[in-house]
């Protein structure tokens, strides 16, 4: 079945589904630096559990 593309190069941006990104936003967690344990190295909901809120980064996507 349609397999999400293998990541071509090291991603500039952490891989995560929109629901993980949303939870991270809510928890104030930056996805950077979290090791993803999901498919294709993506960050899962479980991966967020141990992570600490990033005090300085109010919005994880602020780099854009």
């Amino acid at each position, binding site marked *: *079945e*349609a*397999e*999400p593309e293998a990541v071509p190069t090291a991603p500039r941006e952490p891989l995560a*589904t*929109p*629901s*993980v990104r*949303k939870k991270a936003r809510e928890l104030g967690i930056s996805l950077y630096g979290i090791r993803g344990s*999901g*498919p294709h190295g*993506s960050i*899962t*909901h479980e991966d967020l559990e141990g992570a600490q809120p990033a005090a300085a980064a109010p919005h994880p996507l602020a780099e854009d």
Partner: protein
Amino acid sequence: MPHLNMVQAINQALAQEMERDDRVVLLGEDIGKDGGVFRVTEGLWERFGAERVIDTPLSESGIVGTAIGMAAYGLRPVPEIQFLGFAYAALDQIFTHAARIRNRSRGRYSCPMVIRTPYGGGIKAPELHEESSEALFCHMPGIKVVVPSGPYHAKGLLLQALRDPDPVLFLEPTRLYRMIREEVPEGEYTIPLGKARVVREGKQVTVVSWGSMLERVLKAVGPEAEVIDLMTLSPFDAETVLASVRKTGRAVVVQEAPKTGGFGAEIVATIAEEAILYLRGPVLRVAAPDVTMPLPKLIDAYLPTMDHISNAVQEVLRY
């Protein structure tokens, strides 16, 4: 309650509604004396006469066009197209007229009719006898598309379609005609159009399907899956799908048609628009490949299988 197959359930719905409402007339190729090539209209010509069960010349566009005029005049015609693959000739009448007459006349005329046609693959029949092109109709405002997945729902949905004030395409999964028997109440009952049903509840993944694929889905998936039977494709019940996806966080859509541009795309797109923040993984489609539908020798290699379905479910469960 008698156990009926889908052919019998549809026949019963037609007979009951013809009894109840003399506006209902049937027309099509071989539906009269022959009783229809699948025997769906068997006995109706004898019972209601040639004025209400009209054997027509071989002309799909003419059949639908004639039905449109009947509907405008105040009847509730039920044109039969012998196989969906021959309805392509009637698309102009359906798109240009059936779907638009209410709007074009600003409500002065309307087009209450039910176009019935066998559809879908797996019956080992000649070319064009196994098409699954429901998506074409779902893009046209003004026409409803209904697909039953078993005898009980076939009867209730058809009775409702026959009472709908607007045109309905009623697609009868040919593979199921005699495959499934169910308890079907003898009396009248209707099932609302535009509503999906949760066939089986589950927590981890939503599997959306309709028609003949539903039977495969139910065999292929385990208790982790919430299985939804759309029943009406146009307008489809986005709320039921979205509510389920918001709960499970994962979705697989199973269609029999070729993948690209199929109705599954609309379901996935709706999820991506309206429930994306709940998604834990990709939304996958299980579908036929984007190739010309083959003849019987390759039909099993073409149609989505239980393996395809369970593989897709497993794949999204990885997330």
